[in-house]
C-alpha cells in the first residue's frame, strides 16, 4: 500500500512540475463541498499564479451535495458536473481521505501553503439540552440523512422504523421537510433514486404511517421554503393536517409577511393546504403528515416497556412575543401536551466543530471572520490570522442553499485578492505546497485518494445502479469505498 502511495505521489510531482507557473501561490482548500469547490473555482480564475489543492476527509468529493441533498432531488446534484470540471483543472487537485485535525494539523498545513481556506462545513448538531435527549430512538436529522444518503459514517445508524407507527420531527426547516418526505414518500418512488440500498430496504419495511412536524413558532415563521413545502404537500397517498386556528395572524405578523416574500409564500401554501385538503379520508390514504405549530420540546418520555427507549415527547405550548420589527420568538405558556411516538428526529440545525489551533466562536458555532479572513478571536480588536480564510457553513453558520456558497466564496476570494494586493499576504517566499503535503502524508502512511480514484468509485456506483434502475448505487462503507480505489 505504501509503495502505491509513493508511486502516486511521484505521479503528482511530475504533473505539478509540468503545469505550474514558476512561482505559484500555494492554496489549500479544506473541504470539497460547495464552499470548497466554489472557492477553488474563483481562486483559479482570479489568481493565475494559484495552484489549488482541495483536501477532504472522505474519498468522495462534493460534501452535502452527495451526503445531504435528498436522493429524490437529482436536479440539485447536477452542479457536480461543474465541480468536476474544477477538479480537473490543470492547476487544481483533489486529495481525499485527508482529515484536517488527524492526518494533518492546521499549523502544518499553514506551514506548507501560502493560503489555507477552511470550508469543512458543519458535521455536528445543535442540541436541545432537555431531559431524555440520549434515549434510544432519538436521532439527529444529520445522522438520519447521512444514513439514507450512504455516507460511510452513517452506515451503522440503523434507525428502528419497525416498532412504531409514529415519528416526531423537531424543527420545520428544509432538512425537516427532507426527512419527513423520505419517511412518507412511497418507496416505489424512492427505489429509482440514488438512495442507499440499506435505507431503501429499511424504508420498505417501515411501519411509520404518521409523521408530526413540530415547530416552536407559527406557520408565518416556518423556516422551510416554498419549493420543499410544495413538494411534500403534493405527495401521493398522504393526508395533510394543519390546525386552522394556528393560521390566524396577529396584525404585527401579518404586516411583517408583506415584506418577506419567502415566508409569505410559505404561509400561503400552508393556508391553502389547511383548507383545500379533504379531511378524514384515512380510508383512502395510508399516511399522514401533521404540521404542529406553537409547541416547544420540553422533555422526552422514556418507554415503560422498552427500557432506555423514547416513547414520546412532552411539548410546552407557546405564544409569540415580538422582539423587534418583523421578529418574534416563542414563549412558553406553562401548558403541556404529549405526542407519543417511537422515533424522534431532531432537525434543529447543524453545528461546526473546531480543530486544534483554530479560533472559534462557540456561541455562534462559526470561525470568527471578517469577510472570510479568520480573526484571532471574537473581540472587537482581534488580529488577522495571516493566510487563513474561511468559507461556507463554517464561516456563516449552517444555513443557505448551494448557491449561497457561491457568493460566500466570491467574498472570501476577493478578501484574499485584496490582501495580496495590499501585501498583507505574499507568495514571494516559496512554500512546499502540494509536494510537501504529499511527502508528509506519505511519511505518515496516509493513503491519499485522487480525483481519478474517485472516478473509479463513481463509475462503479453508476454500474451498480444501472442494473437496479437507479442513477447510482452508492458504496456506503469505508471498506467498499477503499476497495475500489486500491
Amino acid at each position, binding site marked *: 500500500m505504501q509503495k502505491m502511495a509513493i508511486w502516486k505521489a511521484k505521479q503528482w510531482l511530475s504533473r505539478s512540475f509540468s503545469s505550474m507557473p514558476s512561482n505559484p501561490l500555494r492554496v489549500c482548500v479544506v473541504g470539497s463541498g460547495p464552499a470548497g469547490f466554489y472557492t477553488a473555482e474563483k481562486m483559479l480564475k482570479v489568481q493565475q499564479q494559484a495552484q489549488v489543492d482541495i483536501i477532504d476527509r472522505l474519498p468522495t468529493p462534493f460534501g452535502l451535495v452527495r451526503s445531504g441533498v435528498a436522493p429524490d432531488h437529482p436536479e440539485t446534484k*447536477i452542479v457536480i458536473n461543474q465541480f468536476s470540471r474544477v477538479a480537473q483543472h490543470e492547476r487544481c487537485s483533489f486529495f481525499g481521505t485527508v482529515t484536517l485535525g488527524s492526518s494533518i494539523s492546521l499549523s502544518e498545513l499553514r506551514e506548507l501553503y501560502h493560503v489555507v481556506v477552511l470550508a469543512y462545513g458543519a458535521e455536528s448538531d445543535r442540541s436541545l439540552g432537555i431531559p431524555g435527549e440520549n434515549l434510544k430512538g432519538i436521532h439527529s436529522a444529520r445522522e438520519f440523512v447521512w444514513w439514507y444518503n450512504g455516507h460511510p459514517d452513517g452506515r451503522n445508524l440503523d434507525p428502528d422504523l419497525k416498532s412504531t407507527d409514529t415519528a416526531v420531527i423537531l424543527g420545520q426547516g428544509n432538512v425537516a421537510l427532507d426527512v419527513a418526505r423520505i419517511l412518507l414518500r412511497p418507496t416505489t418512488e424512492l427505489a429509482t433514486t440514488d438512495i442507499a440500498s440499506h435505507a431503501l430496504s429499511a424504508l420498505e419495511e417501515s411501519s411509520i404511517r404518521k409523521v408530526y412536524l413540530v415547530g416552536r413558532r407559527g406557520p408565518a415563521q416556518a423556516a422551510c421554503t416554498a419549493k420543499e413545502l410544495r413538494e411534500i404537500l403534493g405527495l401521493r397517498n398522504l393526508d395533510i393536517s394543519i390546525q386552522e386556528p394556528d393560521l390566524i395572524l396577529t396584525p404585527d405578523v401579518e404586516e411583517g409577511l408583506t415584506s418577506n416574500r419567502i415566508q409569505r409564500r410559505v404561509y400561503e401554501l400552508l393556508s391553502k393546504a389547511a383548507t383545500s385538503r379533504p379531511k378524514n379520508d384515512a380510508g383512502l390514504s395510508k399516511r399522514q403528515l401533521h404540521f404542529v405549530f406553537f409547541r416547544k420540546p420540553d422533555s422526552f418520555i422514556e418507554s415503560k416497556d422498552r427500557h432506555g427507549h423514547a416513547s414520546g415527547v412532552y411539548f410546552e405550548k407557546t405564544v409569540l412575543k415580538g422582539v423587534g420589527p418583523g421578529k418574534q420568538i416563542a414563549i412558553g405558556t406553562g401548558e403541556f401536551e404529549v405526542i407519543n411516538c417511537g422515533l424522534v428526529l431532531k432537525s434543529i440545525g447543524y453545528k461546526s466543530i473546531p480543530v486544534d489551533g483554530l479560533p472559534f466562536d462557540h456561541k455562534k458555532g462559526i470561525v470568527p471572520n471578517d469577510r472570510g479572513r479568520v480573526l484571532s478571536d471574537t473581540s472587537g480588536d482581534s488580529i488577522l490570522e495571516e493566510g487563513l480564510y474561511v468559507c461556507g457553513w463554517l464561516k456563516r*453558520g449552517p444555513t443557505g442553499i448551494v448557491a449561497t456558497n457561491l457568493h460566500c466564496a466570491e467574498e472570501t476570494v476577493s478578501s484574499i485578492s485584496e490582501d495580496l494586493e495590499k501585501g498583507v499576504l505574499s507568495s514571494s517566499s516559496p512554500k512546499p505546497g502540494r509536494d510537501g503535503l504529499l511527502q508528509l502524508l506519505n511519511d505518515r502512511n496516509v493513503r491519499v485518494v485522487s480525483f481519478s480514484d474517485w472516478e473509479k468509485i463513481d463509475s462503479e456506483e453508476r454500474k451498480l445502479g444501472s442494473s437496479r434502475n437507479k442513477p447510482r448505487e452508492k458504496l456506503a462503507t469505508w471498506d467498499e469505498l477503499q476497495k475500489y480505489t486500491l
Partner: protein
Amino acid sequence: MLISRVAKLGACLAKHLPTRNYAAMSRLPYIQRTTNHHMQPPLSFTKLYNGPMIKKHNLFSTVTANNTSEEGSEQKEAISVTFVDKDGEENHIKVPIGMSMLEAAHENDIELEGACEGSLACSTCHVIVMDVEYYNKLEDATDEENDMLDLAFGLSETSRLGCQVIAKPELDGIRLAIPAATRNFAVDGYVPKPH
C-alpha cells in the same frame, strides 16, 4: 391541439438551430410536460435520470406546458439581447428564437452561472430584466420558477431565471443585468430594495 403546435415548433426549431446541446437548457425538463421529442436532455441529465421520473406535478403546482410557441416565431430567426455583467460591461449578442438566455450566455462566453444546467433547481442563473416593458412581455413565472426566485441572490421586482427566459421575437432588444455580488448574503434569499 396544443401538442401539435408545440411539435410543429419543435420541428421548426430543429431545422433552424445549430443543434449543439440546444435542449440542454430546455424549460422545466423534469416536470411532466407536453414537450417535443426533438429536445433531448443533456448527457448529465440522462445519467441522473435513468429511471422513471418522479412525478412532481400536483395540486400545488402550476405548470405551463408551452411557452415558446408564439405567433410568428417562424419569421425571425434570432433576436438581439444585451447582457450587462457584474462590472456594468455590456455584451451584445444574437440569440436564436427558442433558445434560453442561459444557453445563449454560455454560447457567447458570458458569465452567467447555471449550476443545475437549466433544470430549475438552483437560482444561480438569475437575471434582472432592465426594462419593465420587456419584463411585461414575458409569460408569468410558474410557481416553480417563483419558488426558485425566492432564493435568488439580489432579487428585484423584474427578476427572472435565465434558464426560463426563452428568446421570442417580441423580446428583440431586451437587456438583462447579471446581479452584482453585494456583501450581505448571510440570510437565505436576502432581498435588497427593488431597483
